[in-house]
């Protein structure tokens, strides 16, 4: 009976990652670099939005992008071609999310000196990325109109960790029963402080408001 020895651990699997992330955040603070973690479902418009956004801010601050994908580099090339800024691809090796350690490895490949802002396009998924702090200063997510306004009810964790919710593809609103007021109500149930900005990444409508939010965030981080 006494040959089994039990060692109590009682530790969340996410504890180490949370520590890594906090360390990365304070290093970025020291360097004056702001990291934004952008999440969404596949195809909600992350890359299209980033192109619109970057072209509005790249003359004001130095921006770089890290594209996380399970296995391809089409998004990194698209960003570089459409904006001319530094854009690198991170392969997650089959993993459905990025953690702080993978983010740090990605940042090692970005020329951080003088870079004010790094935007991380996380893996398209509303579940796993929400569980892992990447070390970003803020989390933002894109919800596109065809996905429906009830997503904040179905993926509460994602919406509770995001400070900015971009509602994209408002041009197709007439074809879907998407209710922006309901959406805002559900988002605020999960995070009362979340900012919600409706946009159309295709035409650029509303993207100025996102650019203003981000420029102010970066300014505050550096001062």
């Amino acid at each position: 009976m006494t040959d089994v020895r039990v060692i109590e651990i009682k530790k969340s699997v996410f504890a180490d990652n949370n520590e890594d992330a906090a360390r990365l955040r304070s290093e970025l603070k020291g360097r004056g670099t702001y990291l934004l973690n952008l999440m969404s479902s596949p195809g909600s418009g992350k890359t299209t939005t980033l192109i619109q956004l970057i072209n509005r801010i790249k003359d004001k601050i130095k921006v770089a992008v890290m594209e996380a994908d399970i296995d391809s580099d089409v998004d990194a090339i698209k960003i570089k071609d459409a904006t001319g800024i530094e854009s690198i691809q991170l392969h997650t090796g089959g993993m459905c999310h990025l953690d702080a350690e993978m983010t740090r490895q990605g940042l090692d490949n970005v020329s951080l000196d003088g870079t004010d802002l790094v935007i991380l396009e996380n893996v398209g998924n509303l579940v796993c990325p929400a569980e892992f702090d990447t070390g970003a200063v803020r989390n933002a997510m894109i919800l596109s109109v065809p996905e429906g306004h009830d997503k904040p009810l179905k993926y509460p964790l994602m919406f509770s960790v995001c400070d900015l919710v971009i509602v994209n593809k408002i041009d197709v609103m007439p074809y879907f029963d998407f209710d922006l007021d309901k959406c805002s109500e559900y988002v605020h149930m999960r995070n009362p402080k979340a900012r919600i900005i409706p946009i159309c990444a295709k035409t650029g409508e509303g993207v100025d408001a996102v650019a203003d939010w981000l420029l102010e965030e970066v300014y505050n981080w550096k001062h």
Partner: protein
Amino acid sequence: MHELGIVFYIIRDVKQAAQENGVEHVNAVVMNIGEVSTIVPEYLTDCWRWAADKEEMLKGCELKINIIPAVTTCGDCGREYETVKYGKTCPHCNSANTWLLKGNEVEIKEIEV
């Protein structure tokens, strides 16, 4: 996919705990997994078998899973209810102003050596 990533974190933590306690081989790892943690226990044990057997210290080591029932509390009437049965809406007062109390744990409880 998510489960495999989790398994790598478990392996790292278990190896560290074993080293700190001067243990050479671990026979079992006991996990607390919340009902709504998004972890599928069967996938977790499959991924565990595949990855743990690649580690000398964890060859044949069993992964035991305790499921922690999910409980939600209501911000309006203050009562608690079973999350899986009723979801986001309080069955007592119909409010949607509800918060998960427990049930999203992904925690290493203990190891048997």
